[in-house]
């Protein structure tokens, strides 16, 4: 039986600005596969219902995966035979389900006068824009795994050797721009992958998490640490939540969500390797900190030397000035009429 966990934390900036949490996350765990999904609703005045859009995105992704994998053996044969075709079909169905949900919801809940006022300047927007969101979905099966995304965030695979990789990422993300499932040609931004193998864990997270790291290496290392604590899912979730609160308040400021899926038996078998990786990381971290301390001390010493040289220069100047004054006094004394 596959297992997993989800965690959503409202962004510190969102709390400060009284903005609703626009992230959503979900997971479904079965005997032969497990799925993990997150979605990040866009911020901004026009994306007035992006929290609902991201919720529907998570539901649509999970429902699509379940629909395709209802006959597990048939699906396995199909994706092995032609993964890109199957993944394209999964993408198409995901978009169809999401747009259906949005249209149905919008019919039942037309825009309120307040909402209409917010977007009244622009009549050209499609209704999907109000619900703009990203989507990241990961599926772990018996001896293969796959995933898809539209928009930024983190998609992480921890393999049998406890090595971390990022199999897909949004190619259009830069600065504050990101691909969206609400755009007219959203399918162009649909990225997917399929691999054979038995990873220990798959994790998808919204961009608030990766943006709270100074380097991609740290982001990857974080997932090794997560894997090390996955055996106790409740405790792990508690640790993640506390850590996310810190990461959003001291880092990205954004909502942060994660969804993880793992096979407990594989995880148990790979725990020694995970622990080795954690030890390696801690050792590297210790070395790095020592190096940084050495560099800091060296810089401090250089600064002290520079100041000393500057003081020495001042002393020399003062001595010269003293000599000059002595000479001037001497001259004055010599010019004075003899008493």
């Amino acid at each position, binding site marked *: 039986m596959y297992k997993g966990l989800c965690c959503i934390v409202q962004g510190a*900036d969102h709390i400060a*600005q009284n903005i609703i949490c626009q992230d959503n996350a979900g997971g479904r765990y079965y005997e032969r596969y497990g799925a993990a999904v997150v979605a990040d609703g*866009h*911020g*901004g*005045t*026009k*994306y007035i219902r992006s929290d609902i859009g991201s919720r529907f995105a998570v539901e649509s992704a999970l429902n699509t995966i379940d629909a395709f994998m209802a006959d597990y053996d048939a699906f396995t044969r199909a994706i092995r035979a032609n993964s890109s075709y199957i993944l394209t079909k999964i993408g198409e169905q995901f978009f169809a389900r999401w747009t259906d949900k949005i249209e149905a919801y919008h019919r039942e809940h037309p825009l309120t006068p307040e909402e209409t006022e917010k977007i009244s300047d*622009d009549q*050209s*927007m*499609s209704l999907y*824009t109000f619900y*703009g969101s990203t989507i990241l979905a990961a599926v772990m099966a018996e001896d293969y795994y796959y995933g898809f995304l539209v928009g930024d965030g983190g998609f992480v695979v921890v393999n049998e050797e406890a090595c971390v990789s990022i199999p897909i990422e949004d190619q*259009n993300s*830069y*600065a*504050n*721009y*990101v*691909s*969206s499932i*609400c*755009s*007219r*040609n*959203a399918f*162009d*931004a649909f990225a997917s992958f399929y691999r054979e193998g038995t990873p220990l864990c798959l994790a998808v997270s919204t961009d608030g998490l*990766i*943006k*709270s*790291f*100074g*380097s*991609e290496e*740290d*982001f990857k*290392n*974080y997932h090794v*640490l*997560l894997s*090390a*604590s996955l055996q106790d899912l409740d405790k792990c979730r508690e*640790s*993640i939540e*506390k*850590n996310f609160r*810190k*990461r959003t308040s*001291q*880092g*990205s*400021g954004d909502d942060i969500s994660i969804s993880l899926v793992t096979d407990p038996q594989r995880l148990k078998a790979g725990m020694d390797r995970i622990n080795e990786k*954690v030890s390696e*990381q*801690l050792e590297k*971290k210790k070395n790095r900190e020592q190096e940084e301390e050495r560099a800091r001390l060296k810089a401090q010493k250089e600064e002290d030397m520079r100041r000393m040289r500057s003081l020495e220069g001042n002393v020399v100047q003062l001595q010269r000035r003293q000599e000059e004054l002595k000479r001037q006094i001497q001259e004055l004394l010599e010019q004075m009429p003899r008493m």
Partner: protein
Amino acid sequence: MAEMNLDFEDVTFSDFKDESQSEFDNPLESLPPAKKNMVMFFVIDTSSSMAGSRIDTMNEAMRNVLPELIGVGGTNTDLRIAVLTFSSGTEWITSEPMILEEYQDWKDLVADGVTDLGEALTELNEKMSRKSFLRAPSLSYAPVVFLITDGFPTDNYQKGLELIKNNKWFQVGIKMALALGDGVDMDVLAEFTGDEAFVVQANNLSQMKALIRTIAVTSSQIGSSSMPLVSEDLLAPGDVVKRGPTKQEQMKEILQDIRIDIMNGAEGSYFDVEDGW
């Protein structure tokens, strides 16, 4: 005097429990959060025409502005500095974007050679990418690019300009240019910034010093600010949604004020003979 409440019955042990966890309690704490960060690019002309008082003033202005920039992004943002010089070729003074607090020791630039602006823009385009200077995941803001020059490009600048104008980071960043004196090809600078409103001309050394300071500080403040998110409808490419505001527009308004304050104010009189070029 008010009575002190000494009733501890409702207080439980958990009320005293420290919410913060060390990395011993929670291994995830061993990777502390990184602050948001923004890169400010200075692209500086060090051709021979800059020699003398111009390069001296430039060095002085840069030495003075670096400490002033500390803290402009607030406590949650790291401002990083990248400095590219160009004359006969280009040179990165910073091997990578440096955290401002650690980059306070400005090494004086020396002026010599021709004005290879095209090569500088090509180099800038190469580094302005996720695979290079902008690789930190915590990079939350579009960059600020500040070009300072006193002459005409001596190379084929069009190729470099075309490259940089197609760079997505450059497109969304704040771009400004400072022309030193009247021997500058203003059209090239307007092409670089995309709008002549972002090109400012300094007519003497004190204006130059004041403009470098004011533009650097203001643009980094705007660039690193977390403004309320506004958005536009889906843009022309269709597959990309804009999450943040156009800070360039905000900079445009401020540059108008800067022009009034500095160009017409007491800080730099055009007729100040001693400060003249």
